[in-house]
C-alpha cells in the first residue's frame, strides 16, 4: 500500500520527473577527472605482483617446469606450477550445479588450449615478476591440435537436440517452394576487448578474503571464490565500484582469479594480478566461431514458406558454451514451416563465452542476409519484403508480442535515411570512384526478467542514498537508479547518492542479458516508495511533527520538501522534518523476490545463479526489443576498401529511463557491429591453436576514424509487461543486425554477396 498515488507515466518528456530525463551521468565527474577508482587501482598496502605464464602449445601436457632460474631472480616470492596442490574445490555454475568429481585445478598439467595458464610468478614488483616469468624453463609433450571450427580434423561435432526448433514440414515446404535461396554464412571468433583488462587484487585477513576485481556480477563471483576456498559465503567480499567495460566477459570468476587468490593466501600478503592484454585473448573466451547453412523457401512474391537452418558453433574440449545460431531466426518473420538444428564442435580453445547479444548476433547475420538475398531473388525492395513477411505474433511461441514497434522502426528509419531514393539494382549508385550501397537489416534481443534487492536511506540532511550490489559497467546503473529514487522519493536527483559494485551490499543479478536496468529500477522504486511512505507516516503521526495537527491524511513530498496537498499547511524540508522528529535516517531494504524465494537458500540462489531468470515467453506475451539499421557504405571501385559513410537506426526498447544514456548504448552496440562486419576476427595459427593477433594493434577494433555520424531514433512505447517501469533491454540489441545491414549494403554497392565475416577488401577485388 502506498499513501501517495504514483502518477501514471507515459515514457516521454511530458511526464516531467526524473525518470526519462536526459541527465548526465551521476558518476561522470569521477570518470572525467580520473577519480573513479577501478579494481586494480584500489590502494592496498604491501602488495606483491603476480604474472601469469601461458602455455605455448595448443594441446598436450606440461612435462616439467624448471623454476630454479626464476626462483633465483631478484624479488621473487612465490612460483606456482602444476606441481603445486592449491587445495581448491569446484564452484557452483550458473545453473546452480556444483561438480563433485574431485578438486578444482586451475593450473592443470594437461593443456587443452594455447594460452592456458601453466604458472604464476609472484615478486615484490611487476618488473621483477615479469623478468622472472621469462626465466621459467617449461618442457611440453605436444598432442594433436584441433585449432578451429573449420579445421579439417574438427569433425561435425555433436547435435544439440535441446536447441532443435521445428513446426510444420520445413523440408517439404522448402522443396516445393517456387523460390529458394540457400547459402552458408560464417562468423569468426570475436573478442570483448574491454579497455580495462581483467585482473584482481586478492587480500586475505585470516580466513576472510577480499577481492577487487572488475565484475558484472559481484554476488556470483564472490560465491565462486568462497566455494573454491571452502569458506562460508559471508567470508568473501568482491568489490567492483567501477568496471572498464565488460560486454559479457566480467560476469564470472576465472581460473586466473583462483590462482592469484591461492598465491595471496600462501604468501600471507595481498597479490595483484594484471592479466596482460595478449593474455586477455585466452584467459577467458570470446564469441565462438559459427557457421550456418540457411535455406529460405518463398512464393514468387517473396512470401516465406519455409526456413531451414543447420548450424554449428565451436566450444572447448574442457567446457561447454553454446553460441545459439538459431536465437533470432524463428522470431523475425511469419513462416508456416520452420526447422533449425545446431551442432557443437569441440576444438582447442579456451571455452568461449557471452559477448554482447550472444547467439542473436551471428543468428541475425544469416537470416538478415538471407532475407536480403530473397528480396533480390524476387525483385522486391528489402524493406517491402520485411513488411510482406511481418510477424504479427511470435511465430515460435505463438504468443502475442508485448510490444513490437518494428513497423514504426522501419518507417521512421527509412524516412530519416531517405531510403525511398535508393535505386534497386546493385552497382547503380556511385560518387566518382566510390560505389555507394544502401543496406538494411533488423535486430532483436529478448526481454529477460529476474529479481533484485535495494536499500534506500533518507538522511538527516535531506539527501538520500541508494545501495545495491549491482554493477555499472558503463551502461548507466548509477544514474538511472538515482533517477528512479529521486522520482519515487520526491528528492532532487542532485541529492541522491548511489553505492554499487560490492557483494556485501543487497542482491542483484548479473549486469548482462540487458536486464539489469529493468530489474533494479523495479527494486529501487519499491524500496524508495516504502521509505517515502514511512517518512510520510511519521510526518502525520509523530508527536513532534508539524503536520501532526493539520488534519491532513496524506502529504506531498516534492523537491525535497513536504507539504499538505491543499497547500495551506506548513512546508518543511525532509531534513528539517527528520530533525524535528528526532530521526537520523529512514532506512528501508526491499526486494522483488516472489514468496517461494523468500528463504535464505532462495535468496542466495537468486543473487548467485541464473536459475531464477524468466525468459521472454515465460508469461502470456513474447517480449523483445527490436531495431532496424539503415547503412550507407562506400566501396572504392579499384581497391575494394569499405567505409561506412552514415547510419540511421531506429529502436523499440520500450520506455527509456534516460534517453541520453540509452542512445550512447545503442551507438556503442552499432559501432561494435561495424567492427564485427568489417574488422574483427581472431586469427588462429593452424599449427598450434594460438590466437596470432592477440593484441589491440592486430585484432582490429573500430577506431574513431572508422565511425561515421550515427543517428538513432526511439520508436518505443512503455511496455508494462516487460518491467516495473516499462523498459525493455537496451544494451545488446544495438549490435544485432548491424553486420548484415553492412553486408547487404556492400552487395548493393558492388554486386558481391559476402557471407563470411569480417568483410575485407580481398573479398571484393
Amino acid at each position, binding site marked *: 500500500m502506498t499513501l501517495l498515488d504514483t502518477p501514471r507515466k507515459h515514457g516521454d518528456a511530458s511526464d516531467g520527473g526524473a525518470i526519462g530525463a536526459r541527465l548526465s551521468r551521476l*558518476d561522470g565527474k569521477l570518470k572525467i577527472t580520473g577519480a573513479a577508482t577501478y579494481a586494480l587501482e584500489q590502494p592496498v598496502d604491501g602488495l606483491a605482483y603476480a604474472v601469469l605464464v601461458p602455455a605455448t602449445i595448443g594441446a598436450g601436457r606440461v612435462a616439467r617446469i624448471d623454476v630454479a632460474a626464476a626462483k633465483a631472480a631478484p624479488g621473487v616470492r612465490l612460483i606456482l606450477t602444476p606441481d603445486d596442490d592449491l587445495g581448491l574445490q569446484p564452484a557452483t555454475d550458473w545453473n546452480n550445479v556444483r561438480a563433485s568429481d574431485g578438486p578444482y585445478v586451475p593450473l592443470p598439467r594437461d593443456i587443452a588450449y594455447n594460452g592456458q595458464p601453466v604458472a604464476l610468478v609472484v615478486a615484490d614488483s611487476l618488473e621483477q615478476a615479469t623478468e622472472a616469468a621469462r626465466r621459467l624453463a617449461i618442457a611440453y609433450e605436444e598432442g594433436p591440435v584441433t585449432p578451429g571450427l573449420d579445421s579439417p580434423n574438427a569433425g561435425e561435432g555433436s547435435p544439440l537436440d535441446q536447441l532443435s526448433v521445428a513446426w510444420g514440414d520445413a523440408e517439404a515446404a522448402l522443396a516445393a517452394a517456387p523460390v529458394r535461396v540457400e547459402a552458408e554464412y560464417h562468423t569468426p571468433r570475436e573478442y570483448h576487448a574491454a579497455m580495462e583488462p581483467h585482473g584482481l587484487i586478492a587480500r586475505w585477513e585470516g580466513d576472510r578474503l577480499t577481492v577487487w576485481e572488475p565484475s558484472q556480477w559481484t554476488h556470483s563471483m564472490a560465491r565462486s571464490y568462497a566455494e573454491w576456498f571452502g569458506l562460508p559465503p559471508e567470508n568473501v567480499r568482491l568489490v567492483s565500484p567501477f568496471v*572498464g*567495460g565488460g560486454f559479457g566477459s566480467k560476469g564470472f570468476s576465472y581460473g586466473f582469479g583462483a590462482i592469484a587468490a591461492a598465491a595471496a593466501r600462501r604468501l600471507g600478503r595481498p597479490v595483484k594480478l594484471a592479466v596482460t592484454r595478449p593474455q586477455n585473448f585466452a584467459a577467458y573466451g570470446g564469441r565462438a566461431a559459427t557457421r550456418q547453412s540457411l535455406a529460405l523457401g518463398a512464393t514468387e512474391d517473396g512470401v516465406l514458406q519455409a526456413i531451414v537452418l543447420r548450424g554449428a558453433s565451436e566450444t572447448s574440449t574442457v567446457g561447454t558454451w553454446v553460441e545459439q545460431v538459431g536465437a533470432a531466426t524463428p522470431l523475425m518473420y511469419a513462416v508456416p514451416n520452420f526447422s533449425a538444428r545446431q551442432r557443437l564442435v569441440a576444438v582447442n580453445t579456451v571455452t568461449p563465452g557471452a559477448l554482447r547479444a550472444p547467439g542473436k548476433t551471428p543468428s541475425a547475420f544469416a537470416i538478415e542476409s538471407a532475407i536480403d538475398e530473397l528480396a533480390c531473388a524476387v525483385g522486391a525492395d528489402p524493406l517491402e519484403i520485411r513488411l510482406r513477411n511481418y510477424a504479427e505474433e511470435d511465430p515460435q511461441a505463438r504468443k502475442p508480442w508485448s510490444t513490437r514497434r518494428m513497423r514504426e522502426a522501419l518507417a521512421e528509419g527509412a524516412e530519416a535515411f531517405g531510403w525511398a531514393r535508393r535505386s534497386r539494382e546493385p552497382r547503380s549508385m556511385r560518387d566518382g570512384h566510390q560505389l555507394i550501397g544502401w543496406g538494411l537489416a533488423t535486430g532483436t534481443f529478448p526481454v529477460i526478467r529476474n529479481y533484485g534487492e535495494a536499500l534506500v536511506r533518507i538522511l538527516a540532511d535531506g539527501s538520500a542514498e541508494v545501495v545495491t550490489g549491482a554493477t555499472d559497467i558503463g551502461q*548507466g546503473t548509477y544514474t538511472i537508479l538515482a533517477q528512479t529514487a529521486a522520482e519515487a522519493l520526491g528528492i532532487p536527483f542532485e541529492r541522491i547518492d548511489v553505492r554499487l559494485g560490492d557483494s556485501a551490499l543487497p542482491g542483484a543479478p548479473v549486469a548482462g542479458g540487458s536486464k539489469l536496468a529493468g530489474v533494479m529500477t523495479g527494486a529501487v522504486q519499491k524500496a524508495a516508495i516504502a521509505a517515502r511512505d514511512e517518512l510520510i507516516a511519521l510526518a502525520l503521526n509523530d508527536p513532534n511533527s508539524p503536520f501532526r495537527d493539520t488534519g491532513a491524511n496524506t502529504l506531498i513530498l516534492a523537491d525535497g520538501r513536504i507539504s499538505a496537498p491543499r497547500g495551506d499547511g506548513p512546508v518543511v524540508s525532509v531534513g528539517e522534518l527528520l530533525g524535528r522528529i528526532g530521526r537520523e535516517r529512514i532506512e528501508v531494504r526491499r526486494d522483488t523476490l516472489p514468496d517461494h524465494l523468500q528463504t535464505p537458500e532462495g535468496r542466495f540462489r537468486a543473487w548467485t545463479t541464473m536459475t531464477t531468470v524468466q525468459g521472454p515467453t515465460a508469461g502470456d506475451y513474447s517480449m523483445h526489443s527490436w531495431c532496424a539499421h539503415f547503412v550507407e557504405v562506400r566501396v572504392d571501385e579499384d581497391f575494394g576498401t569499405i567505409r561506412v559513410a552514415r547510419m540511421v537506426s531506429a529502436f523499440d526498447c520500450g520506455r527509456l529511463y534516460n534517453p541520453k544514456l540509452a542512445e550512447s548504448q545503442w551507438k556503442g552496440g552499432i559501432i*561494435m557491429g561495424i567492427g564485427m562486419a568489417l574488422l574483427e576476427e581472431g586469427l588462429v595459427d593452424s599449427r598450434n591453436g594460438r590466437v596470432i593477433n592477440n593484441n589491440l594493434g592486430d585484432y582490429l577494433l573500430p*577506431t*574513431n576514424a572508422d565511425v561515421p555520424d550515427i543517428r538513432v531514433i526511439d520508436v518505443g512505447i512503455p511496455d508494462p509487461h516487460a518491467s516495473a517501469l516499462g523498459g525493455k533491454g537496451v544494451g545488446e540489441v544495438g549490435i544485432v543486425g548491424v553486420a548484415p545491414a553492412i553486408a547487404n549494403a556492400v552487395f548493393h554497392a558492388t554486386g558481391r554477396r559476402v557471407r563470411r565475416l569480417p568483410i575485407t577488401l580481398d573479398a571484393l577485388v
Partner: protein
Amino acid sequence: MTTEITIELDINGRSETLTLDPRVTLLDALREHLGLTGTKKGCDQGQCGACTVHVDGARVLSCLTLAAQAAGRPVTTIEGLSAPGGELHPVQAAFLEHDAFQCGYCTPGQIMSAVACIREGHAGSDEEIREYMAGNLCRCGAYPHIVAAVRQAAEMAS
C-alpha cells in the same frame, strides 16, 4: 637487475622524487608508485591510447615511456588538468555534457588526447577530429560523442 635509480619527476606542477627500478614505465610510476591512477593501462604496448599524458605539453603514451625519460620534464596527467574541486577543463565539461564515455576507462586518455588535439590545431572539422583522435580506442563506442565534445571544446577555445 637490482640497481635502482633516483629520479625527480615534475607531475602536475609538483616535484616527486622516486627511487625506482629503471625498468619502470612512466605509466607504472604514476599508477603504482605515485597513486595517480587516473592514467589507465589498457594494453601496455602502445596500441590503445588509454595511458595518454602530456610531456612537455605534447601527448605521449606513458606505457611506452620509461619514467626515467620523463625526469625533469613537465608531465600533466588527467588529475592535473583541472584543480581538485575547481572548475572542469572545457574538454572535461564537454565530455560530460555530450556523454562522450560509458565505462570511463579510456576517458582520461581521450581527454588528454583531445586537449592536445585542439592545441595542435587538429580539431578544425569532424573529419580531422576523427583522424587525430583515432589513436585512442574506445570499446564502448563513444566516438560520435567524443567528436561532438572535442568540436564544442575547440569552438570555445578559438
